[in-house]
């Protein structure tokens, strides 16, 4: 059954990822995912301030997610609201397991995700972009972290809900994985799903993540097209 925007149940929206787009940031990424337009930037590893947050055995991670006032239909007041603060925290939970934190004791890695235009799935796009930005910054990681949401719309389990589907839909489930180990590092859900539907939705989201992963790899390799070393 076709969806509101004509996609098949397992079809992703159009995604474009570009690595290394900012001058000052140590690593950066710009992603267009459907109508979402999002920047991710990484600073670090760097000195921990305030000092008392320092850990002697590993780096610490700080994640910030923010939506620009003009990114949504009704202007949003500047600065992160409670939803944004929560997203910052789950983003950290999604990305940190992939980072080899013990390489950089007594240091800090700061991730910043800014949404310039929003159309559902911003946290998934944000995590996907942040992962690329981390790699762009040369921070050692076990793997990249692709992220994608699945959900239930019109009694069907579908992949990558757009805004209209999110508004009218019956469930929304953002997921992120570490592809190599198939470990799920982001999982949230709201709506109503039976046990079977949950399993189906997670499996579908994981398949979506794997597709997103190939796009992340492409974006990083594209930055160094023609690379060689003597």
């Amino acid at each position: 059954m076709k969806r509101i925007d004509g996609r098949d149940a397992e079809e992703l929206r159009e995604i474009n990822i570009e690595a290394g787009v900012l001058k000052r940031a140590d690593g950066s990424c710009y992603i267009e995912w459907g109508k979402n337009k999002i920047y991710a930037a990484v600073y670090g590893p760097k000195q921990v301030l305030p000092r008392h947050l320092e850990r002697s055995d590993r780096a610490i991670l700080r994640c910030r997610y923010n939506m620009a006032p003009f990114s949504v239909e009704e202007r949003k007041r500047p600065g992160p609201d409670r939803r944004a603060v929560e997203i910052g925290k789950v983003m950290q939970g999604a990305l940190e397991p992939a980072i080899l934190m013990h390489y950089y004791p007594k240091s800090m890695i700061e991730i910043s995700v800014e949404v310039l235009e929003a159309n559902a799935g911003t946290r998934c796009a944000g995590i996907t972009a942040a992962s690329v930005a981390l790699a762009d910054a040369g921070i050692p990681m076990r793997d990249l972290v692709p992220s994608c949401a699945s959900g239930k719309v019109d009694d069907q389990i579908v992949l990558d809900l757009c805004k209209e589907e999110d508004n009218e839909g019956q469930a929304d489930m953002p997921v992120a994985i570490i592809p190599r180990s198939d470990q799920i590092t982001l999982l949230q859900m709201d709506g109503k799903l039976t046990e079977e539907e949950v399993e189906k939705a997670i499996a579908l989201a994981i398949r979506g993540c794997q597709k997103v992963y190939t796009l992340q790899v492409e974006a990083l390799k594209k930055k160094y097209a023609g690379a060689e070393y003597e």
Partner: protein
Amino acid sequence: MSEILPLIKKQYLLELAKERKREDERGLDEYRPLDIQVSSVEKAEGSAVVTLGGTKVFAGIKVDAGEPYSDTPNEGVMITGAELIPMAAPDFEAGPPGQNAVELARVVDRGIRESQAIDTIKLCVKEGELVRLVFVDLHILDYDGNLIDACGIAAMAALATTKMQVLEEDGTPTEEYVDLPVRDLAIPCTFVKLGDVLLLDPSLDEEKAMDSRITVATDKKQRVCAMQKGEIGGFSLDEVMQTVRTSKVKGEEIRAVMREVVQWEDSEPDTEEN
């Protein structure tokens, strides 16, 4: 590298300035490469991305409706804000706007407001009760020097391409869209002083090395509509007048570029009274 400018670098920039040279080989009155893109974001009624050298800023316009200020019951309201978000530079911290962000927003606002670029009378829906509120939100993505000009250009380009829904007198939106009434293109020009030399469009290091800074905004008739001396240090009257003269010329050059990009037509070409 930390944000301290090494003394040896400052010395080098001062020496170059004395010989009327700059690190990136620009002229003293020359802008870095400028790129203006408009209508980049659908959700905003107007938007622009400006890249000036390595500086990249985003201006988003949202048009809402609300009560007018009591002293201007028949005029729309413009509100400008700027956010120096952490991704733009290693030393930008998250949190409410500090002095730099507030000054930036207010200087950009002043140029546009005082030039009367927006015909605020046309933003009145019902006198004393309902007017259009125009929110200008500046989002800094990459800070590499001269945020004021980059933001001023972005804000102006975004406003000049803003389309808003027409409202009935009681505030009900109609199906009709109309251009935001923009009748001028205010352009700020910012200079820094290194020793005795004035440099237009400072790079990041030139800003770090500067003694002080001055911004002059001009309108389409090359009248000065806003000025701001910034940071510590001072200017002589001659130096100020030099920046005014240069701003008139360079402002017009930027205005010409902007006209092209936003396809702006002067709706009041020969009005003396503005």
